[in-house]
């Protein structure tokens, strides 16, 4: 196959922010995740946990809690506002000031008719959910002290509120309130107020609470008596989540553990006398577990250590399989790195800024495994801070390195870059067409003459670029009438084709020269996670969240023979078992048989000229091939050449000089930037 020179880049200081809240919609199987920077991510649990949508954050927005009402998503935060999101345009639909000071929690009743929020000023406010908005209805009895947590009784007539040192139960019918007093911690913490971080209200009127003294308490809501106290940690119990059938409750703590309680009979003899028993402890986090959801077959948790963990409950599976494996989602399922292949430049996208780097150079050659001496070090050319409060949602760099664009929710900015030798000059293009207000995706044509911007309802704006001006040309619209946003966009090297993919799993191919829709690729059931158009054959290669690979001939409007062969034979199980999606597809212009792909843990070159591996073939065979002699090798070759030398990959691209650029972000580096976890006494320390 051959040798490659690899630029191993570890200077992209990508830092995900902590997870603050999550809400699972069992009906649509979507998980909404709120992060500290105010961004919201939607994961499709029905489609391999694919990160389907990302709503960028905003400086002034904070999310304390998320809540689904049907297919509508609401959040509330310490800025005192309730926000409903427009999931089609990936932006807040509206925000409403609740006039109760910072909001700690938001929750809807099971009927989906009302929202309740808990405010700093001690009020619980009820909002009626209307067709297009929400409307304030009334305040429940105002209390002294803030309302930290809320939970509706499934009947919708009672609501339990976690406060400081107490839980209050409001009855909407009788207007009575019951007070449950929560103990403080022992010793020094006796003087500190106990914060009831989380409550759940079960249909049998049992209330379960978790508090800052490390207790999980079970209360009888009828009598207002404490049934049982479980001291689970020396630190805080932060989050609680109850399973749909109310037989299990999971608890997240500051120590990073998730503890499960189950409603079971403690002895085999008395099956009737059930009680809440602590059963299992999971430790998949290093820091606070701030958000939890117990779904049908798994426990989903997230917190300060920024990763989303899906821990399947093994008793819900008949046999060990792909679905029963622990999953950690650490990196976004989209690109944050853009590479100018001709110019050897890298663009890193952060929420607040863009960084432009020039790669280093080396002279001489080396044996495989060698590090080459550097002639020139990599250099940071540009640090471009965004304007305004909105975070950057997408960006693009032209392959010549002459243009740079980014978009926030409220504006698109385009810059002209000029580099002569060591000097770089950046000029903002002043007048952009008015129609170009914001974009979900941006990309430049390969000759840098056009800018494509993915706009609302899966449409694409075509903007012509020249030295003197920047002109709106056309809007490409899909025929399907989909309202979903575009999350992938790629164009062909000859400038003729543009392909877009949206969250409805639709892939449209447009003829850019004729400015019309060329064809729709047959819709496949899993969302495409990466795609690319081949530079010579104009075949579109798509990789989906379920790891399937398709190749579609744009010219012939049908799947290629290779793709059919691959589908007929099936992909190797070890390929299908990988648990991170492919996030980039690119090609080798010098060797048209090669397709380059990568996910977080591996980089792969598919050589279409080689036989496909069947299930009996050793799939990861690079080590074996290395040990074989030149003559023996050909009989062991197969199409998938997988290299795992590079880990925690954010991006892989092939420069025009045939060298690879691997952008790694070691998880260890992310961990080292996190605040210190709560101190745990370990033996002999």
């Amino acid at each position, binding site marked *: 196959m051959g040798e490659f020179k690899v630029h191993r880049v570890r200077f992209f200081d990508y830092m995900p922010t902590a997870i603050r809240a999550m809400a699972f919609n069992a009906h649509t199987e979507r998980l909404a995740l709120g992060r500290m920077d105010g961004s919201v991510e939607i994961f499709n649990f029905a489609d391999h946990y694919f990160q389907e949508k990302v709503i960028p954050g905003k400086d002034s927005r904070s999310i304390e809690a998320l809540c689904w009402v049907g297919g509508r998503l609401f959040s509330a935060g310490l800025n005192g506002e309730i926000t409903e999101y427009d999931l089609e345009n990936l932006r807040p639909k509206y925000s409403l000031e609740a006039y109760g000071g910072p909001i700690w929690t938001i929750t809807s009743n099971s009927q989906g008719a009302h929202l309740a929020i808990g405010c700093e000023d001690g009020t619980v406010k009820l909002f009626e959910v209307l067709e297009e908005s929400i409307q304030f209805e009334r305040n429940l009895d105002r209390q002294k002290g803030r309302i930290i947590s809320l939970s509706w009784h499934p009947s919708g007539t009672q609501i339990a509120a976690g406060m400081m040192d107490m839980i209050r139960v409001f009855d909407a019918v009788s207007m009575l309130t019951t007070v449950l007093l929560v103990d403080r911690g022992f010793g020094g913490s006796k003087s500190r107020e106990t914060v009831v971080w989380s409550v759940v209200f079960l249909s049998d009127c049992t209330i379960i609470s978790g508090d800052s003294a490390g207790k999980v308490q079970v209360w009888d809501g009828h009598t207002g008596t404490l049934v049982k106290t479980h001291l689970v940690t020396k630190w805080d119990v932060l989050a609680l989540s109850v399973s749909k059938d109310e037989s299990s409750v999971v608890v997240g703590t500051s120590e990073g553990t998730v503890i499960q309680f189950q409603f079971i009979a403690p002895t085999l003899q008395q099956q009737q006398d059930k009680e809440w028993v602590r059963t299992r402890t999971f430790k998949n986090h290093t820091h606070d577990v701030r958000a939890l959801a117990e779904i049908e077959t798994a426990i989903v948790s997230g917190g300060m250590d920024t990763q989303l963990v899906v821990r399947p409950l093994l008793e819900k599976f008949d046999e*060990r399989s792909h679905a029963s494996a622990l999953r950690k989602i650490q990196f976004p399922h989209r690109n944050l790195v853009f590479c100018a292949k001709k110019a050897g430049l890298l663009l890193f996208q952060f929420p607040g800024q863009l960084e432009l780097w020039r790669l280093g150079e080396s002279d001489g050659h080396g044996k495989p*495994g060698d590090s080459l001496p550097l002639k020139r070090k990599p250099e940071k050319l540009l640090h471009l801070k965004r304007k305004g409060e909105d975070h950057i949602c997408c960006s693009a760099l032209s392959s010549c390195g002459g243009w740079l664009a980014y978009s926030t929710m409220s504006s698109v900015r385009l810059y002209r870059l000029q580099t002569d030798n060591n000097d770089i000059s950046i000029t903002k293009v002043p007048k952009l067409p008015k129609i170009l207000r914001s974009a979900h995706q941006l990309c430049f044509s390969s000759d840098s003459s056009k800018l494509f911007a993915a706009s609302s309802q899966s449409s694409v704006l075509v903007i012509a670029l020249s030295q003197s001006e920047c002109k709106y040309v056309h809007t490409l619209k899909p025929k399907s009438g989909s309202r979903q946003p575009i999350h992938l966009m790629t164009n062909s090297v000859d400038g003729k084709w543009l392909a877009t993919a949206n969250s409805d799993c639709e892939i449209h191919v447009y003829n850019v020269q004729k400015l019309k829709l060329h064809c729709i690729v047959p819709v496949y059931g899993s969302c495409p996670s990466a795609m690319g158009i081949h530079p010579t054959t104009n075949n579109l290669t798509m990789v989906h969240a379920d790891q399937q690979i398709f190749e579609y001939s744009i010219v012939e409007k049908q799947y290629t023979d290779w793709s059919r062969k691959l589908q007929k034979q099936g992909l190797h199980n070890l390929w299908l078992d990988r648990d991170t999606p492919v996030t980039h597809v690119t090609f080798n212009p010098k060797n048209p048989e090669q397709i380059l792909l990568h996910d977080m843990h591996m980089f792969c070159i598919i050589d279409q000229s080689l036989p496909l591996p069947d299930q009996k073939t050793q799939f990861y065979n690079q080590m074996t091939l290395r040990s074989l002699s030149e003559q023996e090798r050909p009989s062991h070759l197969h199409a998938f050449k997988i290299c795992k030398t590079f880990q925690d990959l954010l991006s892989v691209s092939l420069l025009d000089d045939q060298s690879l650029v691997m952008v790694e972000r070691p998880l260890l580096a992310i961990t080292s930037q996190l605040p210190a976890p709560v101190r745990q006494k370990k033996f002999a320390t």
Partner: protein
Amino acid sequence: MATLCEGFTLCGLVQTQNASDSPIQGIELDEDSDHAVVTDSTRSVTLYKVSDQKPLGSWTVKQGQLLTCPAVFNFQTKEYVVVSDNKVIRVWKDEDLNLDKAFKATVTADVWRVHSAPGGEPVVLFQRGAVRFLDSLLSAPQQPIEDVLSEEEVIRWSASIVAEEQHFVLFTTEQNGECCLYVQRLNPNTLQKYRLEREDSGASPLSFSASLRDKHLNLLYLYPNGCVYQSVVAARGYVGLEGVQDLPRSLRLRLPVGEGELGAASAVALDEAHVAVVGVPHPSARTGKDFLCIWNTNFQTLQAGILRNWSFVWCYLGKLFVPHGKALSIIPYECQKSSLASALGKLRHTGIAVSKSSVAVPSWNTLLHGDQPQGPTKIVETRKSVRNVKLGVNCVQPQPHQTGPVDEVQREVEVLVSRGDAQDLQLSVGQLACHLVARSQAETAFYTPVALAQLVQTQFLCHSVCPGLLLLSLEHKDYFLCQLCLQLFPDIPEVVTCACLKTFISNEVLQTPYSDNFLLPHLKDLDTQQVILFLQYLQFVYLKYSQDVYTQTAGLRSPTMTQIIDWVCLLLDAHFTVLVMAPDAKGLLSNLQSFVKSQVKLFSELGKIESSLQELHKMKLSKDISQYSIEVIELF
């Protein structure tokens, strides 16, 4: 010496219908070294705490189901794995109470064994020879399993061995009386097939045992005729060999079998020199084959034995697990290296260039008495097999050494030594040396220093072959020959070493192998003047070396620092009370004391900077991960 300690009963057993069948399928360890996972031959798995002899947990499959492979512990996931009814893999944890509720997966082919070892992933070996990692198998249980073995080939035995970063599954098969060994390396997967040499009787091995030593896989197997063979397969490096290889073997041990052949017997390698054998008669007992014996394979000596009725044995962590009658017994054992054993390794310091070729130590009783040879005990790896050595005294003709004058004897020896055949030479050299020594002892005028030196230099002699030689040379004050013997004999008894010491002090004496316990009483025979002189000499050597450590060239035979210090300690131990009283030893003792003080101080200082040095080591590692590098990779 190996000793068997007093055994104890771990648990009772259900007697099987066929007495030769083991009531136990297997015994495995889990992460606690004091635990044993015992799988019986029918339906249950029990976890025992060995020291308390009590069960910690027991799991049973339903009536009608049958466990078909011993339960193993998965050291990575802390789960137990067992196979029932050949195809159903069950995985459970310590805290699971019911095996039926545990995770199970049905695979498409019959499983032979699941193997697990600390530091490695569990591996499933199918009856048709295919091998899968448990994890990958469970992720797709219905995956097709290929046939590796031919139709009538059946697996007889299997084992898995995990060495640093290498994982092996070994199994032996049998087909029409032909036995083969398969070595499956995992990651990368390669399979190598070896054909075992056929025993003359056509019988197949009764038991196998595999171990890893010095980066070689050692396979030990026992035939019904009592022969224990060892075969060695290199563990490292890729074997680019196609097809079936013949597996060379070497005879390690020929056990006395009594009348007839062995029925059910089993041999397990304990360490490089010791083998535990059950189901074999005790040489000194007349009847019965029901002994557990430990044999030293280097010297063909029986080290320990107990009478019980048994035929299977497992060995873990210094304990033998033996089912017998209605109970499972545990017998702790110890294998200490004696002076004899250390001749083959312990004190022959590797830093010193001794002789390049290994010293072959023949079994003396064979050679001296000319009865059926058992072959050399030190394995020569390159040899394909042990040839039947049929060589007696009559080969050396004419025999001037019986009566002829010195120069004639000299000539005869030269002729003999110049002959090439090492195997024959070994025998005849021993014979000749013995005769010469015997004649020298009888005729005081007869002494052939040159001839003897030549014989010693062939390196086929050792002290036990010709015990009189060294003493004879001492008698004749032939120090050259003494030095030579000390240099080349691996097995000089401590008493002789001390006798040498009394006459002369050398480098050579310090380097002779010894064991403390045996040497100490003989050292006490030295008188004070000798001790003081010796200590002074040791101190001189020590100071000389400590000044210029690096001048110790590899070719020069010089004792190591450790050897010198060891001798100083031994001498002081043996004579301390006398030395304290002796006025002329005072200066020497105070010198030694100040030396010890300085050493202690040095070590405490080293201890202080140890952690700093470790930090330096770590820093070097972290430097490797730079922010940016340009590397070259190769894809195939």
